[in-house]
């Protein structure tokens, strides 16, 4: 049996070990994708267009191709999109970028399916990948915008102060990569892209057309389909003098045939556009702009697809009188 003194020594050493591990994790966390993006945003100046959204925009917006097609100087288009993130993180990213904008700039917000309507319901267990950025991007705003239970609010407040908890998803990703390597040992290589296994990306879509149609009906019936962080993003755009352009991201023909051909979809989209227009936002539908061959999986564009999409987007903005001149 350990004496009380020995127990205290052991606990003190344990706390030292954990403190050291936390310091190492905090240092390791500086390389997280979201933190790299923050450094890019903070280093930007006179941004004419800031693109944000989730992985669809992160993979789909080619800054250079957009600038060339729009006749903009280099470094004036910024891709501030973050894979595996939600509108709450997008709001925080855009708010940060809004301090780097040139006068009368533009927000290009990429969305698909119900991204603009889904309520921001979350649990702390959800903040494990890039969404852990909510712990440090703007935690007070995240607590306001996310619908969290009282228990999850307390956890959020505690976790945001402990690097081991903030960066746990990044550490776990290494174990997950190892697990996948062991799983695939001796098997033919699986198709992957920068985000992971292609087969897994199907899980990001709604499971069935029936479920998709039901969601369309439910949101359209609400008559107020905008998610609160999206509404707040439009207010931030207005305050910073930026034009908000909501871009329905390119989708594969399979996705469009399966979901966007449903009669409920145009009704939902009509209601959504009406609400966005009331808030001063412009909607561009790019869902059918890109050929299937230029997708790296069922929803993400490959590099050639990103170039084509960005060039077409620049042309469309110019055609709609929304493109700022290079001399401004």
């Amino acid at each position, binding site marked *: 049996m*350990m004496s009380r003194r*020995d127990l205290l020594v052991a606990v003190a050493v344990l706390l030292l*070990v954990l403190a050291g591990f936390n310091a190492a994790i905090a240092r390791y966390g500086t390389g997280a994708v979201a933190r790299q993006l923050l450094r890019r945003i903070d280093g930007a100046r006179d941004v004419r267009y800031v693109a944000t959204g989730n992985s669809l925009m992160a993979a789909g917006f080619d800054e250079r191709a957009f600038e060339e097609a729009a006749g903009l100087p280099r470094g004036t288009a910024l891709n501030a999109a973050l894979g*595996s993130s939600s509108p709450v993180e997008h709001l925080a990213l855009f708010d940060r970028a809004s301090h780097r904008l040139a006068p009368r700039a533009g927000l290009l917000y990429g969305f698909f399916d119900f991204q603009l309507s889904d309520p921001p319901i979350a649990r702390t267990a959800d903040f494990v*990948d890039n969404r852990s950025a909510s712990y440090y991007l703007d935690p007070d705003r995240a607590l306001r915008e996310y619908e969290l239970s009282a228990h999850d609010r307390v956890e959020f407040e505690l976790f945001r102060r402990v690097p081991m908890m903030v960066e746990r*998803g990044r550490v776990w*990703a290494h174990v*997950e990569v190892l697990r996948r390597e062991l799983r695939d040992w001796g098997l033919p290589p699986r198709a992957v892209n920068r985000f992971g296994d292609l087969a*897994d990306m199907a899980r990001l879509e709604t499971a069935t057309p029936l479920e998709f149609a039901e969601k369309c009906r439910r949101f359209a019936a609400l008559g107020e389909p905008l998610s609160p962080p999206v509404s707040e993003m439009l207010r931030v755009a207005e305050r910073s003098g930026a034009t908000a352009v909501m871009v329905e991201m390119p989708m594969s023909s399979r996705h469009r045939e399966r979901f966007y051909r449903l009669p409920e979809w145009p009704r939902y989209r009509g209601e959504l556009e009406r609400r966005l227009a009331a808030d001063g936002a412009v909607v561009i539908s790019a869902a059918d702009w890109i050929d299937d061959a230029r997708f790296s999986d069922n929803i993400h564009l490959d590099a050639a697809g990103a170039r084509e999409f960005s060039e077409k987007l620049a042309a469309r903005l110019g055609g709609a009188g929304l493109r700022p001149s290079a001399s401004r």
Partner: protein
Amino acid sequence: MELRERSQRLFRYLDYLSGASDAPPPGCPRLLTRPAFWGVWWGALLITVYLFAGQSSKFIYIDF
């Protein structure tokens, strides 16, 4: 050393490290009896649990 003796010795160490036995096995290095060792050992166990606790998460993206 016979296999049986080796395995008995291993189990004695495992009993000691897991807390099932308070007494260290015969011939145990003194380092393993010091309180500071227990602090490091518990830390190593907690960090191991932490590293593998993510298996209940549904990873789709590996981009972070």
